């Protein structure tokens, strides 16, 4: 019993000392006003020291992607700190490669502003905005996937590329958190952002979005993402997804056929059962209008009683292997769980697709 007391007293003392240090730093240590220089004078700011770089950037409407709310557990908020960031912390090293550390990349949520600081942020991220929107419609696509259409209020339009994503602000017990969702609406609908969201049991973002009703307000930042659709119309586009991995594919395909009606494109989509199939008829309709568009849905589970399916069977990488001929110039976009991504990537490499032309979004 005495050991238990000793251990708990020591632990309690340590926690109390750590808390006192944090409070003392907050109220007693004054770093004063520090200069925050973004992109060599492009956006000079003066900020109160002692805050994290990420929170200061957010307060000044520079929305760096971050999925964990600044807890240092997602590794998304990478920016280049050319000077004034202090040493790289052990909490950052698991997310940064040697090359990135040499290139002065840091996690903005882990860098505390204690002196004048100089950062470089890609121009594209400086264009990211905070949007206010309302839910125009929310409909069930399957038992656990919903399509949510957001009408933009302020700003009223978004300029994005196919394959990009937004970060939805969802309420949580620890304050607002941001969760990333791909935009499924095509780029020619600038006043709408459509999302395809699968309910993750216990997931903060998906639970919030699944409970929304028409008229509800939603805030988000965006657009984010580096994917660039190949502009050469002779390059065939291959989209492979599963589950809610449909969202970026839908955007890519509709945007593609709006711009290049004759371009060759394949959509491979993996589902477990017929109850998980959605958008199939819509894509078949599109394929009738555009003969170079090919839709392949594959079911991985055995058919249940009363289920009918004339399409492909088995996991989606097997369909990719069966339908794609080797040797064509292609750009591929994959979206799904890591084992699926790995299996499809291997098949595509066997078909001669260069690894540089394979883009993926794991979830």
């Amino acid at each position, binding site marked *: 019993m005495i050991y238990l007391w000793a251990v708990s007293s020591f632990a309690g003392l340590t926690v109390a000392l750590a808390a006192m240090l944090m409070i003392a730093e907050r109220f007693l240590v004054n770093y004063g006003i520090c200069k925050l220089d973004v992109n060599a004078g492009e956006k000079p700011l003066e900020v109160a020291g002692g805050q994290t770089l990420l929170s200061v950037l957010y307060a000044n409407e520079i929305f760096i992607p971050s999925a964990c709310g600044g807890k240092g557990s997602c590794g998304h908020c990478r920016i280049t700190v050319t000077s004034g960031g202090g040493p790289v912390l052990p909490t950052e090293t698991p997310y*940064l490669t*040697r090359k990135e550390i040499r290139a002065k990349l840091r996690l903005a949520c882990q860098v505390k502003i204690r002196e004048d600081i100089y950062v470089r942020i890609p121009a594209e991220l400086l264009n990211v905005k905070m949007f206010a929107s309302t839910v125009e419609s929310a409909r069930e696509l399957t038992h656990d996937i919903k399509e949510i259409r957001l009408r933009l209020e302020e700003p009223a339009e978004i300029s994005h590329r196919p394959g990009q994503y937004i970060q939805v602000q969802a309420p949580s017990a620890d304050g607002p958190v941001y969760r990333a969702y791909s935009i499924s609406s095509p780029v020619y609908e600038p006043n709408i952002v459509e999302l395809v969201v*699968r309910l*993750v049991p216990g997931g903060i973002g998906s639970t919030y979005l699944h409970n929304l009703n028409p008229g509800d307000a939603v805030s988000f930042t965006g657009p984010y993402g580096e994917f660039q659709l190949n502009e050469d119309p002779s390059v065939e586009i291959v989209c492979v997804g599963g*589950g809610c991995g449909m969202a970026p594919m839908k955007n890519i395909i509709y945007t593609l056929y709006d711009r290049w009606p004759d371009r060759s494109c394949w959509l491979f989509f993996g589902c*477990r059962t017929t109850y998980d199939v959605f958008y199939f008829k819509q894509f078949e309709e599109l394929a009738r209008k555009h003969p170079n568009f090919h839709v392949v849905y594959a079911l991985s589970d055995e058919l249940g009683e009363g289920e009918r399916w004339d399409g492909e069977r088995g996991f989606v990488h097997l369909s990719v292997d069966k339908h794609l001929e080797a040797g064509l110039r292609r750009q591929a976009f994959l979206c799904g769980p*890591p084992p699926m991504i*790995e*299996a499809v990537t291997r098949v595509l490499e066997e078909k001669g697709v260069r690894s540089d032309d394979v883009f993926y979004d794991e979830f």
Partner: protein
Amino acid sequence: MGVITIVEVLEHVEKFECMLAEFYAKVSEQSTREGVRLLADYMSRHRWRTHEALTKLPIETAEQIYRICHTPLRYEPQGADRHSFEGVELPPEATAAEVLDAAIKFDECLIQFYRQVLRQPVDKEVKELFESFIRFEQDDEIELKKIRAMDYF
């Protein structure tokens, strides 16, 4: 209690990773379910993902690697060995959820194994290396739990 170097600790992990690869190869070969085969093939490459994560760590110079590898420790490594497979049965009809549960258990074994090193009086470089290993396994565990919750396979 003998003296063991970090390089011997890493060799112990490598041996365990090879055992895991063999285990999953067998699961894949025997399974009657396509989803289980896909998952098992993915799991069997855990070792290569660990290697990839290792190459990204901020350990740069040969002296640094030499210093870390030859750090002596006075303890007996426990776990992450053939005993970790005891009670893990994956028959040919095993489900994807059972494969994922086993994989999560093996990740946990590795985390416990790395934590033993952190309980020794090690310097900052070694501590950071093993903390990175733990974080890698924890991330893998989160990913596996997510795949399990989403019922993909």
